[in-house]
């Protein structure tokens, strides 16, 4: 049975699809949760994955296989669940005066379609390796030490690669008038 049949069965609510999906994807999701939430204990990571599985199946109608793999989509659910867990946990621990969570950069909402197109073009001009490192650090939200473990290199090597990739992308965007025209004079 391929993924397409399994997902169709899950969409129809077939009970047997649950254990099968868990067998196929639980190792990936738990391993990924260790990467994005390595600072949390195993119980917390399992709870995050539990939420992710429940939501992934509840929202299964939104999964589009032409856009990406089911594994990538499921990892996204783990990221959202991890963010919710941290938010809920912070609400509980902030009463005890714990440190606030690390600031998360919010996307700029004032970007025009032109600037977004320029960002896409800038990314497309990067090498495969640069795209991978940006993918792992930014889109998959993995800390550099987790990326280092995955790739079998040092933490410092990952940091250097990531810095260089951002630098190359930044240089590309600074040369692109679609970006400089909008951002010139804007808050930087």
């Amino acid at each position, binding site marked *: 049975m391929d993924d397409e049949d399994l997902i169709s069965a*899950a969409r*129809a*609510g077939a*009970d047997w699809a*649950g*254990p099968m999906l*868990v067998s196929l994807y*639980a*190792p*990936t*999701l*738990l*391993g*990924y949760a260790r990467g994005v939430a390595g600072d949390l204990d195993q119980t917390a990571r*399992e709870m995050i994955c*539990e*939420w992710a*599985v429940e939501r992934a*199946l*509840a929202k*299964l*109608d*939104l999964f*589009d296989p032409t*856009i*990406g*793999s089911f*594994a*990538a989509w499921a990892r996204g659910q783990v990221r959202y669940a991890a963010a919710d867990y941290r938010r809920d946990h912070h609400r509980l621990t902030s009463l005890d005066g714990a440190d606030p969570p690390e600031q998360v*950069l*919010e*996307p*700029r909402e004032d*970007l025009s379609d032109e600037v*977004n197109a320029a*960002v*896409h073009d800038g*990314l*497309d001009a990067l090498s*495969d*390796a640069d*795209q*991978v*490192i940006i*993918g792992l650090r*930014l*889109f*998959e939200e993995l800390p550099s030490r987790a990326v280092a473990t*995955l*790739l*079998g*290199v040092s933490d410092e*090597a990952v940091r250097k*690669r990531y*810095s*260089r990739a951002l*630098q190359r*992308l*930044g240089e590309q*965007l600074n040369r692109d008038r679609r970006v400089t025209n909008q951002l010139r004079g804007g808050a930087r």
Partner: protein
Amino acid sequence: MTTTDGTDGRFDGDAELDAIHRELVSDIDSGDVPEPDSDDRADVERLLAGVDSTVLRPRVRRYLDAVLSGGEIPTANARSRLTAAARRSLAKRRTVRPLPVLLQERRIARDESAARVAEVLGLDESRVAALEAGNTSVSALSAEVIVHWIEHLDLDRSVAPSSLARALTLTQSARSGIAAGASETAELSTKDRELVEEVRRLLTSGSS
């Protein structure tokens, strides 16, 4: 992990992925790389915060899937919890209410008449009433009209396709003579499955 021919065994001999991996692990400067200005770096990251991995090249996405697929073996407790979560979610999917019922509830909640909905969809008012009551099957409508109906009433897109499938299944069950309280349900016909898929595609592609 490294095979006898020097490739990374994780990629099952996929030459493209091996090439990406070699580039990643070999091109590491031993010298210092000047750090980008922290404001510049934050600017670039913020520009990227609005995009996701779908902008990456397909072979890069394959590499990410491959390198992230390793994971960890679930404990018995973890497997049990995840399986229970999956079953809970699937059970809820089975109790999904039919689309015309949800649409009627939305219409009433918005204090909108069936006549107004009929006007928007280009249908007779009597037809809208029949659709809402389940006397006429939604399979009589095109995917575009169904999506227009969903969008006009601002129904949650994430539940719409499964609700449509539920409505079509009930219609098929009635045609098959399966009793309303029976645990079995009819299978969707190929035509109905295609209708559900087309509606899903239009909703996720943002047809509006």
